[in-house]
């Protein structure tokens, strides 16, 4: 309970900080598709 109430919000913050901008994400996906 305590662990999830601390680490789930922290993980969301980390994800938001590290999520690539959408244009980079598109390029990443197109690269993985073989483009």
């Amino acid at each position, binding site marked *: 309970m305590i662990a999830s109430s601390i680490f789930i919000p922290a993980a969301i913050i980390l994800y938001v900080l*590290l999520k*690539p901008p959408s244009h980079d994400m598109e390029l990443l996906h197109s690269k993985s598709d073989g483009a």
Partner: protein
Amino acid sequence: MDTEFIFMLVIFSMTVMLVMWRPIGMNEAVPSFISALIIIFFGIVSFSNVVEIFGIVLGASITILSTIVMSIVLESIGFFRWAAYNLLNKSNGSGRTLYWYTNLLCFVMTLFMNNDGSILITTPIIIHIVTILKLKRHQKVPYLLSGAIIATASSAPIGVSNLANLIALKIVGLDLNSYAKLMFVPSMLGILVISLLLYYYFKRDIPKKITVYHHISPPVSMDYETKRRKSGYTFHPLIHAQQQQKSIDWPLFCTCIAIVVLVRMSLFIFPPLGIPMEFISIAGACALIFIRWRKKKKGIIDIAVKTPWHIFIFAFSMYVIVYGFKNIGFTSILVNSLYGIVSENLLNASLSMGVIITVMSNLFNNLPSVMLGTLIIVDMGLDSQTMQVAYLANVIGSDIGALLTPMGTLATLIWMYILRKNGIFLSWGNYVKTVVMVVPIGLIVSLLSLYFWAQWVIFS
């Protein structure tokens, strides 16, 4: 008693001086280990004491070392280049947004790793960011100093972010869950106050608008990078240039982060079921190493070389030295003089222990201070509630109060060393001039919050 005390004082002073000064790049474990051997040789700490200390320090050191191994794996897959690139992109040209993002990153990194690891990771990222932004010296300081303060202070909310806290936990009979239940809110309030005060202190120096003069390479793949733009920029000062040209695998990156989060949560969930914390940490580190090997075919040589294995020897030796003080009766003197104040009520316990450990940490570093403080608290024979509040105040003093001088924590000393290596000179005077405006207020807020919060948790 007098001869022994003078002997211990000389040994202790020499050790602290050499650990801080590090002549000819000496590892901090060397002087502390030699001092511990001398103390054991003269019989001040017995063999049975050594066995006891070994048992206390081993599990905590393994847990911290496993966390460091995880951060080395993350570094090798480009995690930190990714972070620097994203922070700049997400700031949308606002220096203030970038300021809050860097602080947030430092906080989260300490929460998921540990204070020393976080400083080692985030300082080069911030140096890199302020360098590519071509900020003036007075504009760089807000990002660097607040990042270091937040990264170090953020080791207080959960017990597993700091080696000293982890060692002391066992002694006072707390586990990670009860620690977080009592400590998360008070220390978060202190950190929040410190970050707001730092923001207002630096507001005029933080540039409103920032412009990226260099092209910044996104840390994706070389193919994509060549198509997009050609950049000769070296991204992370800790990463070898050749290493930076390797491609980054986004799914691998997400998997590794998910493992780090799961391991952190497991440290809270499984130990109450009888699984030792260090087993979980080792399993997490092994999982990351295995996944990297599967995806990148990379072995463990870089990890073996980069991991600071000496941490265990350092912590063990410092504890032997502190135990020496206990055995010669020095802690009994402190126990007798402090018992009246600490045992009176929870408010006194919180404020007195927090302030005492702050003073001690800034005089001779927080690791021996928190160990000595814990031994004093245990020897006082307090009721369990007062003992736990006094111990948590001890931690607040050593994690937040210790920030008053660079001497207070190893993390701050590492930070100053990285700055110097990168040509950024910040004197101890300038450091103290800034932190003295924010840290004492943050410390008092945390200690008072601890008193009110503990009362509410214990008596509700």
